[in-house]
């Protein structure tokens, strides 16, 4: 069973144009670790080299910010959707 990683438009070029990717159920951390192995250019847009989610990015599991759940240890169950959401900031 798999879950879905949902990408914002700005990151799709780093995923070969795909708006969504299948990810293996587990934790947010394991999903991003797997991404680092298969699509490192995409993964490092989301996390820095120390594994921290970049400052102006939020990850939502369904309708919840993972920071309000268990952070990177949040369980990603089969059938759920993990969203990468950039901050609406800048000028």
């Amino acid at each position: 069973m798999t879950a879905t990683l949902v990408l914002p438009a700005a990151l799709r070029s780093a995923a070969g144009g795909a708006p969504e990717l299948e990810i293996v159920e587990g934790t947010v951390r394991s999903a991003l670790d797997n991404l680092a192995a298969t699509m490192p250019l995409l993964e490092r847009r989301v996390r820095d080299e120390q594994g921290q989610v970049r400052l102006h990015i939020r990850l939502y599991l369904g309708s919840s910010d993972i920071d309000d759940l268990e952070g990177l240890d949040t369980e990603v169950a089969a059938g759920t959707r993990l969203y990468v959401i950039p901050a609406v900031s800048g000028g």
Partner: protein
Amino acid sequence: MPQTTLLIGTRKGALVARRPRAGAAWELGPLELPMSEVYGTGIDARGATPRLFAAADSPHWGPTLFHSDDMGRTWNEPGEAPVAFPKETGASLVRIWQIQAAGASAPGVVYAGVEPHALFRSEDGGITFSLVEGLYNHPHRGEWGPGNGGACLHTVVPHPTDPDRVLVALSAGGVYRTGDGGATWEAANRGIQSYWMPEDQRFPEFGQCVHKVASHPSFPERLFAQNHFGVYRSDNYGSSWETIESGLPSTFGFPMVVHPQEPETIYIFPLKADSHRFPATGRCEVYRSQDGGKSWTALRSGLPEGEYRAAVLRDAMCTDGGDPAGIYFGTRAGEVYGSPDAGDHFEKIAEHLPDVLSVRAVQVS
């Protein structure tokens, strides 16, 4: 006839301008890497085809390094992060400020100066880089502070013939140099003033806010520096520095560029003060010395008339290495100017760009 390529890094992407031959009109290419801040641009002209670099960072997606082997028509980014701190440092890359190819004696070697204060070295032409641990673990590190732009290592001056000698500048840590390939580093700031300190502490061993250092390949022992207040010259590879400020309207500024054929000819863009970062005289003027800093002349032919309020940042001025030498600079008003005759006359190459952060140029036959 040589073709000139000018790489322009801006706050929202990079552009390449081309002049197909001397005297021809400039052709400005499309904006690449949109929404990326391109503080660091570099050109490694040692190979048959120059390799262009654009250090791009995004507040959202982080910093990275692109390279182009077709003069900026296409840009490539390696799968693995080109520049990344090792896990054990606990540090994360904020920005790549400087990309600098080494001399001919170190083929394939390219340096990256980054924020937080660190130097990285590539031995594969700038595709993958490793942390220079000798500098990162320097005992002074804990006392280096950030400049207004950040805790950046913004200048790398590799020795042209001795691959073991490299000089760097940090804001605000000052100048450091190595003679053993980066294993050990010593501060090289004697004579450079930290004007903001109490009077008895204005010449510390390190901690100065050096904005840019440049040298000429044929006289690598001679260095020129634009400081956070202060313009300096060293004739002994940084062992000591003397001021070369007589005749300048201000000693504050960012860039320092050396003419590619004339080791005594240097260029700066003076600003009024750190608290007033506007052109020192209120006009858009480059200052040139043709005698190693003994005297200075304002260059304004072809530059905007009247009041001008945009600054030129530390890497936003360069030469193209040609003969006659082209001199280029970009301003925070999004304009780029170039001189085909070493500064005697300028022309506008581009306007209405995002503010210009960096420029690099090369002539190719």
